[in-house]
């Protein structure tokens, strides 16, 4: 089972080491991790996607909450969260296959951000699943390089009402 854990921490050098170190030490698996400042400059939000059963999730949340710098830990349910990930993907595509790649990009709402004689670079932000679906369709063209940010998420206010 995958879980999204949203952690608010005091923003100072070393805080990421404390959080990541905990995952290593307790041998929890991190699928992805993204950190960035929040609306308060002194607070950072770390969004971590982990796999594990309910017992593992419970332990991860408690252990993370124990860290001195952690202000709040939340388990965001996929269905009640807005999740986004950004990917930049360079695909091998010359003049012959170019239009096919662009067609796929259009379907997923990806942007063409660079093009050379034999490559196209696309940018897509979306749910992890949308990214995976596009990657699957691009695979036959041979992906040269890909960079992904990992998931960021906020709880969906409309589903709380």
């Amino acid at each position, binding site marked *: 089972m995958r879980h999204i854990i949203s952690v608010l921490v*005091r923003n100072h050098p*070393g805080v990421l*080491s*404390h959080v990541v*170190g*905990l995952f*290593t*030490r307790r041998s929890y698996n991190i699928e992805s991790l993204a950190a960035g400042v929040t609306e308060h400059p002194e607070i950072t939000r770390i969004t971590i996607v982990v796999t594990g059963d309910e*017992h593992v999730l*419970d*332990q991860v949340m*408690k*252990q993370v*909450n*124990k860290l*001195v*710098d*952690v*202000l709040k830990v939340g388990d965001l349910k996929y269905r009640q969260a807005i999740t986004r990930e950004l990917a930049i993907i360079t695909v091998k595509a010359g003049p012959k296959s170019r239009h096919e790649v662009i067609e796929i990009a259009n379907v997923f709402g990806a942007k063409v951000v660079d093009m050379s004689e034999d490559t196209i670079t696309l940018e897509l932000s979306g749910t992890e699943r949308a990214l995976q679906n596009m990657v699957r369709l691009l695979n036959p063209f041979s992906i040269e390089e890909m960079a992904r940010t990992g998931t960021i998420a906020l709880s969906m206010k409309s589903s709380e009402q």
Partner: protein
Amino acid sequence: MKKTGAKIFIETLLEHGVDTLFGFPGGVLLPIYDELYHAQIRHILARHEQGAVHAADGYARATGKVGVCIATSGPGATNLVTGLATAFMDSVPLVAFTGQVPTHMIGNDSFQEADIYGITIPITKYNYLVKDTSRLKEVMYEAFYLASNGRPGPVLIDLPKDITVNEITNPPIPKLTLPQKVPHTAKEKEQRIEKIVSLIEKAKRPVIYSGGGIIISGAHQHLQTLAEKASIPVTTTLMGKGGFPETHELSLGMLGMHGTRYANYAVSECDLLIGIGARFDDRVTGKISSFASKAKIVHIDIDPAEVGKIIRVDASVIGDARQILESLNRKVKKQSHPEWIKQIGQWKKEYPLAYKKKEGVINPQYVVEQIYEQSKGEAIITTEVGQNQMWAAQFYKCDKPRTFISSGGLGTMGYGFPAAIGAKVGCPDRIVFDVAGDGSFQMNIQELATAVYNKINVKVAILNNGCLGMVRQWQELFYGQRYSQTILEGNPDFVKIAEGYGAVGIRVTKPEEVPSAIRKAIELDQPVVMDFLVNREENVYPMVPPGGAINKMLDEEK
């Protein structure tokens, strides 16, 4: 008026009532040691930084105060690592300071530079690298608060040299801004306690399993009140020894791998197990699926992350053991379980903790029994790790908290002797014995110089079997008696070693000499090393084979 960081450092220690610092100087610590030269703080110079940190740990465990140690950058700092991990596993309040190269040289692989901040993240409760002298005082206040509040633990502060040299205007007493976390509301806490009360009142065969948390929170009397009021037998962990009087009729002694048979039977047969300030360690539980398998399980702990970590619980409450026991004692009505108590009495009679006395050789268990006799049970006992530790735990009956000091979680060989030094410094009027093995003692034997020079009159009782006894025991039982690297040929003459350092050395080879040797050691106002040549083949029994159910124990062949 402007002050250097070093001056602020000393003043802040004094503001926290620090009277003793265990340490070892070095280049980047010169500004601090220069201030220490005339400060009103006793500095105990160890002979190895590991000795300093274990001594601070022993001081903290014996007194309940925060232990403080200091080491220089690089190797000095890395030599603290084992001590910090030891304190972290056993929730000991420590503040450790390390020197660091000046801030502008950090990251250059400078001389004696080590990233001790990064190294100690997983083995400290929290740690700091101070980058600005104006933050120093606040960091120290936070560190002392964190080390001693909630679940205690070691906190490390890394001090680059320039931080201690720079001058700033006198900083005010800081206000702490640490995040506060409340595990449950007062109402929720009340409901959880009510649930525990009703479980206690319904139970027919209850057992309390109490750990180090009882000692840390000073809850020993409250524990005894609950046990007596609700008629509940108490078994303690190694860390919990002294949290409940072991001479009390409701005491089951220690449970687990080398616990008493009756404690393990009681836990296996009980219908309610109340864990207080304990963490269901594998040395306690053995095979989890058969641990207290007939019981509802209650867990009372200050650390929310401990609840449900190892075992599923039926009721739990988070908080300080003493406060929770106070409210339990107010609510629980008097109970009695005559049949259960009778059953336990039978087990005690049938399976007492015993050993086979061998003619003409010293049984190590007998040495521990005699230390108990001759000190009238009033000593502070520290232990090394291995057989000596288990025999000390089995045969030295502790009635009071903070009298049994041992590396439980990490199992650090070489811990007991420096810890004894720290305990004696903290409690100078007490008799302090380190129950040692010939293997463990050699891991921090250099601290004899510390004890002798500072007139710290600790007594070391080496149960000298010429081998790494516990590992040898496992080899005998589980590895076909192939004693790979566990026979310590080439041990030194411990009496001469003691004398060489200026301590007293006593060799004891016959059982009949044991009582008088211990009496003599107690009477001498000097550090004493007693070398008891004990039976090599002696094993620690009873024993739960690793991973086995705790009610299936091995015993010595009759």
